[in-house]
């Protein structure tokens, strides 16, 4: 389990103040984003579909310039995209995908050599897929594909990991593996930001940021995730869970699908 005592992290790896961003000349896609995430922290990014989660990731990756506010990213950021976005009929193995993480670190005329292959194989071993390194990416299960993309981010030597809804379409045992992996990545001193619809899981992490174009709330989950905050985040589309959970815990977004 993640041990809060191990965190040595006064300096945030990612810090934003009043951050806003837009595409082209359009309206602001996100606005008023203010947070600080230190090494060792797991931060849930909650919000409806189209609420700006992916936009915030693109700003953190440096792909989209801030339209207003301040942003400081003190580590290399890497994204773990949804696997539906990559082509499953593409002729690559798990190792080929992990090796894509070496592109930025090599001069443009150099191809990955033995050292890079070892790095990629080590990263696959770290996500428990060393044995599957030679298998086609498209043949792997959804959870395994997600872990291959985590391995690719590890090859990039990223301190800030951005996971875009990693649990969607992943079965229960794979989701548990992924949850354990997220805990370990954070415990090793990385900052892990996970865009998710799973409010219950968010409660077990260190920080939550609720985003519905504007930032609704940010902070540790326990005081932050109130019914009012979730209603503002999901536009009132929340349902009460039946008995069992304590007060203030009995809310989930209506479009949430159980895993």
């Amino acid at each position, binding site marked *: 389990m993640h041990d809060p005592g191990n965190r040595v992290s006064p300096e945030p790896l990612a810090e934003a103040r009043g951050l806003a961003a837009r595409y082209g000349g359009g309206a602001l896609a996100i606005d008023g984003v203010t947070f600080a995430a230190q090494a060792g922290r797991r931060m849930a990014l909650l919000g409806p579909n189209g609420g700006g989660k992916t936009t915030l990731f693109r700003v953190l990756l440096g*792909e989209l310039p801030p339209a207003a506010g301040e942003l400081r990213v003190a580590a290399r950021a890497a994204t773990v995209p949804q696997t539906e976005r*990559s082509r499953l009929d593409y002729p690559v193995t798990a190792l*080929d995908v992990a090796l*894509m993480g070496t592109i930025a670190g090599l001069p443009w005329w150099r191809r990955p050599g033995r050292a890079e292959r070892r790095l990629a194989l080590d990263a696959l071993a770290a996500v428990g897929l060393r044995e599957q390194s030679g298998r*086609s990416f498209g043949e792997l299960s959804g959870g395994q594909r997600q872990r291959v993309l985590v391995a*690719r981010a590890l090859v990039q030597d990223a301190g800030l990991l951005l996971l875009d809804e990693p649990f969607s379409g992943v079965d229960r045992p794979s989701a548990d593996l992924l949850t354990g992996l997220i805990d370990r990545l954070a415990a090793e001193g990385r900052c892990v930001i996970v865009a998710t619809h799973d409010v219950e899981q968010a409660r077990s992490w260190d920080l939550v940021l609720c985003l519905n174009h504007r930032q609704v709330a940010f902070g540790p989950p326990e005081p932050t995730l109130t019914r009012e905050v979730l209603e503002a985040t999901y536009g009132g589309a929340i349902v009460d869970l039946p008995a069992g959970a304590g007060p203030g815990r009995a809310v989930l977004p209506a479009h949430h699908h159980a895993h």
Partner: protein
Amino acid sequence: MPTDAVIATIWGALAAPWQDGTLLRAFAEVALIGAVGGVLGCWIVLYGLSYGAESLAHALFPGLVAAALLGIPIVIGGTAGLIVAALAVAAAGRVPKIGGDTAIAVVVTTMFGLGVLLALSPASPPGVGGLLFGDVLGLSDGDLLLSLVLAVAVLVALRLLHGRLLAVGFDRGSARSLGAAPALVDAALLVLVAVAILVAVQGLGNLLVVAVLIAPAATARLLARRVVPMMAAAAALAVAAGVAGLYLSYYASTAGGASIAAVMVAMYLAALAGTSLRPRIISARA
């Protein structure tokens, strides 16, 4: 011994075309075209650029014809034709109510029609018509040397770009965060396709050049599960089809370019039939 006689006859039939300098050059040209077309074709197939490659080939046609008429190198004419076509596509795309696809179709058809008009006009010298269907038997040593230089340049560029092409084709959205700029990679690939068309157009002709860029790679796609083996298979198939096409042309007195294209398409159909009849291992595992 009758078997010896049979072997000698077959050997004689296979060796006969190689006695001829013209055919020797033709064999060298199809080997170059096959290597470049097979390897580059893999990216064309994986990027879904088949329509784009065909458009590119037709759009640079009037440039080729103009160069042949003016007596300047066809590389210069082809490049000029491409620039004119690109500007025309951009301009047509700006006209309201004309979509991108329509703009390309209109420009490409216009350019190609213009080229055909020039090439087939009675005033044009007879060799110009060869640009349409190719003249693999009419190559000079200079043509061959130019093909060699361009072919090597394309293969070297593809090797340098390999990792970036792989990453962008896999997932365009996250490629930038990996350090591969999709727009740059796309542009580089299109430039290489244009160069490959210039290499192949003299041998295969403008109408058939697309066959070598697509058919061997599409065939290899059915057989290989990784990109590099796919490229090796595509290049081998393309060279084999080129050589087989030349034999066909030699003994059946058919047009060289058309024979090669026919063998390539036949190969694809055979591979498609073969993989369709085989139990679908991959889809069963997914």
